[in-house]
């Protein structure tokens, strides 16, 4: 986690909560200050030990583990939402259906699984067939399929938490990626370029009316916020941006990208609900500092079925130029 004088990456994000079906009831999962908290499982570590010994594993704990597994997974950037208009609606019923499908979809149905399963929706309890010996030539494909199923189940669970959690996970992954050493960072540059392009392009379309396909991004490294220029005309028009990976975490995940007709390129002083950002009025101009203020409906509190959707995302306004 970056802890610069300008603030940590998540300082512009308020806490966020949702309910999820866990065991016989519904439990609250909260994201706060960059961490996922299981309010109904104060001793998750102990529960994990019990699960390893054959006890039931709570869904809340499974989700937290999935979060941890994917906190540096660049696939999250490729799969997750591109913006509020791209809300990915996954329900816990979808998650349960996917788990059932992967259980009965072939070899994975017979594979021994570590730990027990919780009852209730999506219960995977019950007698399991004895595992027959798997011929060596099928072991690798079987493992690949199991991995793919687990990855898909993980993603579904994380997305089922709602848009608010989705963007925070994206922020966390982007922040982790921006901290990679230079040499290793080069290997992940294509993923980061695609991830920024994917999220900047719709913002630029709203900002300038430019076709998203005409937005070209390179990854900025080093001092400064980066650069932006608009070149060409007609079909040859290109909006070229150079931005750091941290833009996804500090700006985009916080919902700051387009604030008061300005495209925000950096955060000078992170905070909630007040922050100071650097923003462009137009491409090719120097960014100007803006004091911005956020309003949001606040943490989800409308009942057991409420999840933080795109409509609950913070709305930032220019407070003072």
């Amino acid at each position, binding site marked *: 986690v970056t802890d610069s004088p300008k603030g940590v990456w998540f300082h512009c994000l308020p806490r966020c909560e949702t309910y999820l079906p866990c065991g016989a009831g519904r439990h609250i999962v909260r994201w706060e200050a960059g961490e996922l908290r299981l309010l109904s499982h104060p001793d998750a570590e102990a529960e994990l030990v019990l699960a390893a010994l054959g006890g039931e594993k709570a869904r809340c704990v499974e989700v937290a583990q999935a979060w941890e597994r994917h906190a540096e997974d660049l696939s999250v950037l490729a799969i997750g939402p591109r913006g509020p208009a791209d809300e990915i609606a996954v329900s816990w019923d979808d998650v349960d259906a996917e788990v059932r499908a992967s259980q009965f979809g072939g070899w994975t149905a017979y594979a021994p699984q570590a730990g027990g399963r919780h009852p209730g929706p999506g219960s995977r309890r019950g007698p399991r067939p004895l595992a027959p010996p798997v011929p060596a030539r099928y072991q690798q494909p079987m493992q690949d399929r199991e991995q793919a199923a687990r990855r898909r189940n993980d*993603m579904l669970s994380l997305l089922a938490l709602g848009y608010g959690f989705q963007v925070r996970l994206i922020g966390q992954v982007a922040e982790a990626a921006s901290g990679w050493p230079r040499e290793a960072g080069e290997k992940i540059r294509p993923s980061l370029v695609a991830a920024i392009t*994917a999220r900047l392009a719709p913002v630029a379309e709203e900002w300038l009316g430019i076709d998203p396909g005409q937005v070209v991004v390179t990854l900025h490294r080093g001092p400064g916020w980066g650069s932006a220029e608009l070149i060409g005309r007609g079909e040859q028009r290109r909006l070229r941006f150079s931005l750091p990976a941290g833009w996804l975490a500090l700006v985009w995940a916080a919902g700051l990208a387009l604030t008061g007709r300005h495209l925000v390129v950096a955060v000078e002083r992170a905070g909630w609900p007040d922050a100071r950002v650097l923003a462009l009025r137009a491409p090719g101009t120097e960014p100007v500092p803006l004091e911005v203020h956020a309003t949001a409906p606040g943490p989800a509190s409308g009942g057991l079925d409420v999840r933080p959707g795109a409509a609950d995302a913070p709305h930032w306004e220019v407070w003072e130029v």
Partner: protein
Amino acid sequence: MNGERAETILRLLAEAELRNQLAPDPPPWAGGPGAGRVKVYVVGQALSAVGALDRETVEDVLADFDLAVGLRRLHRARPAITRRAASAARLTAQLSPGRPAPPPNPPGPPPAIQAQWATVAGGGPPESTGSLGPAAPVPADPEQDAADRFVPIGLTVPFHQGGLSGELYLMSFAHTRAGARLIVLWGKPTLSRDHELGLQQAELFPVDLFTVADNRGSAYELDFTPANGSEWISQINLRPVPPDGIRWLEVVAPPGPAVRINLDPASGPPGGEPEVSAANLSAGEQLLIMLAEELLMVAAQNSPAMRPELPALSPRVMQTMGTGLGDIIAALEAVDMLPPLSPVPAQLAALCESLRIDGHEIAAAPADELPEPWLSLLTYYQRRKPDTAQVRDGFAAMTAALPELDGIRLALVGLHNTQGTTVLHVLARGLRREERLGPHGADLDFPLSFWLRDNGGRWHAARPIGWQPTDPEHSIGLMLVPPLPRSTAWVEVLAGGRSGEVRARLPLRWGAPP
């Protein structure tokens, strides 16, 4: 090689396709449902084929793309039927019983190409292209064994024993570093009534009946192995390897008599020395040529005349094969695997236009002229009537050792017709069988362009349909499209690689069955 650039291109393409596919009103170039995935897939395969990107990265990008699209469609209504899907549905409906067949879709190639066709199709056999100029020096092959010897045979060995009768057709003799063998084709055996009734078990390939000896009286152990993945084509390996200098071999099966094989190369039909010309194709150009040839072969096999009973399939197959070609070209150019001034994209565009493939999205304007073999196959594709008679079964003895191309050495050891299909048999050195597939089914394990021109002027494309991998040589069956009629007296082989092109003229000695 800029792998980072290649990966960035693929990921950005996936991003663009995700945007297109999920747009409320997808743009026309987005194609039908699934077209986006096809594009990402084929561009990934293309970048992998030219070595710009590893396969694992391509698989990762595709896995993310599939999940991203799939999750967004979880609760969406079924996608609206696009123009292309509607067209397919209409064609499917037309196939329903009781409905008349759709009117034929007259082909309409660009005028410049029509004029070129006229020369090939209407003007009789085209003039020989003649020499390709002074032969370029063939790269020396340090492993080339001077003892490599290929002799066409063209003889039949009949056999009869215990109610089983049949013929073994001897196509050629090959002696290389990998050993000495006869390339043979089994005829369909005739079974006695007891065999037919199942009272006696029939051995369809009675290898134990045969013996082989040479002019010095030495007998050989015979080891039959299937060639090209088919048991009807076999190699009879001779053990020990015959010494240099033997003049003939005799193959005997009951009731006899012995069939003598003259191993003096001069005894075979005369053939011309291969002509070699240099080339300097980029990896991208080579791949595009392979794609074009794959497209031509699929077109020829799915032409309206070939499959009048399935008119809906041909356009569908062809449209699918055109998907992503423009993206492939753009990606290859972007990673410097395709020169910006290469003529091949324009030729591929012209080919797509000729085949009425409208979704290729190739930016280059269609070329005015196409390579002669392409035109010949296009003419075959566009014929209005199916071939009235299937080519007759039979085999042709022919051998030729082609000069090395791109590190690959091919020896032609015969061809045969069966059930309307012609298969050319080659021994190949310098290839690896990894079952690597390129975009749209291109076989990357056989990275050569391979054509035969018959003495009537018609070109026949070749692609592998069967491999028998052995170290260090592979026995490969190349299917010819269109098949070669038994009236063909000679063929000209044209093999092209990145570094050069080889032409060789070979007479054919057709054998049984009559």
